[in-house]
């Protein structure tokens, strides 16, 4: 993938985004005026110690939380101040989530888990099933479609979660510690998969991690400390 051209509208842009929790004595500044731009097709790792504000930044990017001040522009459009419903629709159509704890619905088959975002889009059953199976094939789990999460290994569960995130063909894949619950070998497999999605399908990936060897898969690493960006570097990816 070519580096983004100068002057392109960033897909994700923070302008002096601050987030304050609580008030008075109990006030906590999670983000203290952050500027950040992420372009299409980028693969960004967000790093930092706990309490550095990286999770807050991720929640704001994911439209799960709103800044106290500053602006969040999605594809050049300011979305600060939208209501809950509009945030939900943004998540539904633009974003795919992968969590540390997989967050699959229990007692629900893999393919039904992958179908879930399409259900909320009101897609007809037949088309939904086709697309869910295609997404499962992309993560190499077409043979496990009828298995429930409890019948799958951690790595397989995370693959199902990735299939669920990409089945809607989102602009951005948001991964919050995607390998946090996995062993090293499985972590590599998952990261190879994420890397491939970024490289081959051009999905923009934003990933929170605290493990340097996981961050090494990204093309760019943004480090947060005390609610500010400490460093922002492009890097050579590890060979996938």
């Amino acid at each position, binding site marked *: 993938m070519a580096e983004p051209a100068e002057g392109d509208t960033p897909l994700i842009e923070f302008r002096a985004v601050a987030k304050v929790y609580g008030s008075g004595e109990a006030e906590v500044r999670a983000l203290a005026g952050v500027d950040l731009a992420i372009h299409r097709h980028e693969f960004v790792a967000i790093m930092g110690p706990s309490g550095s504000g990286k999770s807050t930044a991720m929640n704001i990017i994911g439209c799960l939380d709103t800044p106290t001040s500053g602006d969040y522009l999605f594809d050049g459009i300011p979305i600060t101040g939208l209501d809950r419903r509009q945030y*939900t629709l943004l998540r539904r159509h633009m974003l795919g989530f992968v969590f540390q704890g997989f967050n*699959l*619905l229990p007692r629900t088959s893999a393919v039904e888990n992958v179908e879930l975002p399409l259900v909320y889009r009101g897609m007809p059953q037949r088309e939904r099933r086709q697309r869910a199976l295609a997404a499962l094939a992309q993560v190499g789990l077409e043979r496990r479609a009828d298995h429930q999460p409890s019948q799958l290994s951690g790595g397989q569960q995370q693959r199902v979660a990735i299939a669920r995130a990409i089945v*809607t063909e989102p602009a951005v894949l948001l991964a919050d510690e995607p390998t946090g619950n996995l062993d090293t070998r499985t972590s590599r497999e998952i990261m190879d998969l994420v890397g491939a999605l970024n490289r081959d399908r051009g999905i923009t990936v934003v990933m929170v991690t605290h493990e340097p060897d996981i961050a090494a898969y990204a093309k760019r690493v943004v480090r947060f400390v005390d609610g500010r960006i400490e460093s922002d570097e492009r890097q050579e990816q590890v060979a996938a």
Partner: protein
Amino acid sequence: MFTETLKLALHAIRRNPLRSFLTVLGIVIGVAAVIAMVTIGNGTTVQVTERLSALGTNVLFVRPGQFGPGRASNEAKSFTWRDVDAMRSQVAGVSAVAPVSQSTATVIYGGASRSTTVVGSTSDYLVAQNRIVASGRGFLPSEERSGAAVCIVGDTVREKLFGSASAVGERMRLGSFSCEVIGVLERKGEGGMGQDQDDMALIPLRTLQRRITGSTGISAISVAVRSDVSTTKVQGELERLLRERRRILPGREDDFSVNDMAQIVATMASTTTLLTGLLGAVAAVSLLVGGIGIMNIMLVSVTERTREIGIRLAIGALEGQVLTQFLVEAVALSIFGGVVGILLGLALAWGAVTAMSVPFVVSVPIVALAFGFSALVGVVFGYFPARSAARLDPIEALRHE
């Protein structure tokens, strides 16, 4: 989308069948109780109505005092032979006027004895009550006038006392005197209140007055109206005649009542309405309790499934979609309870009416109402938990363990 939601709801209910069942038990019991009671009540009403109608709609019953709900039968003087004669001679269109007084006495024949109803009347009784003398004969006018010791027995009395032997011509003991059995009534079966109409002995009214009750009063008069004459018209004439004879001033209420079968049935029906009202109150309480049960378990369910709700919200479920999901789940639960309750109630009622040999009459409106109410309970008591699910913060919900 809706079938999806329904599938989800059923999935959630099946996930914990025992809990789901216990949750709806309140509704099941409430609905079952109402359905069973109403169905049994309907069957009984139908049976009573059928039997009363079988007595004939062209018979008027004249009784002292007033009857009906909210009206105690007050102390009113009984009728006299003169009243009976006046009705027969002054009211046009009557085919029989039967004065009736009743008592209970022990009848003894050989080694057998039985306590039975003793009816004192005249041969007009057979016309008014639609009874037939199967064997033997009816009263002679001379026997009626003199108060002779003769009796016509019902089939039950005949069977218990005489068995297979012929009763006619035998002498049996009735209370304190001995009387000759001159006839046996044809079997009639159970009456409107379930009583055995063949467990009786009919004697001339004067005999009853002299030998058993010792009073000259007549406690009721059955008047049969000719089929070509309006019952209402005769009823009006009887009322006018009795007011005159009993010297009731204009503006004062009657101290007697003249009813036909339809009116007696209506009186009973109004009693049934009162009972239905009470049942409704019991049903309302049990549905309320059942609804609280559902609300309680739905709140628990929302707490348990906080993470699931978080996932759904994060991947694009709108508040309304989550609300609908939990609401449909609550309604599905309560409808399930309602349906089980209806089936259970009908089964109980069927068992009861079969044991009571009463017809099984299903009231469709009550079944529909029970169904509708159980659905409504789901909506009302499911709304609050569903709303609290829909309003969860996805970040908090996802963090929930």
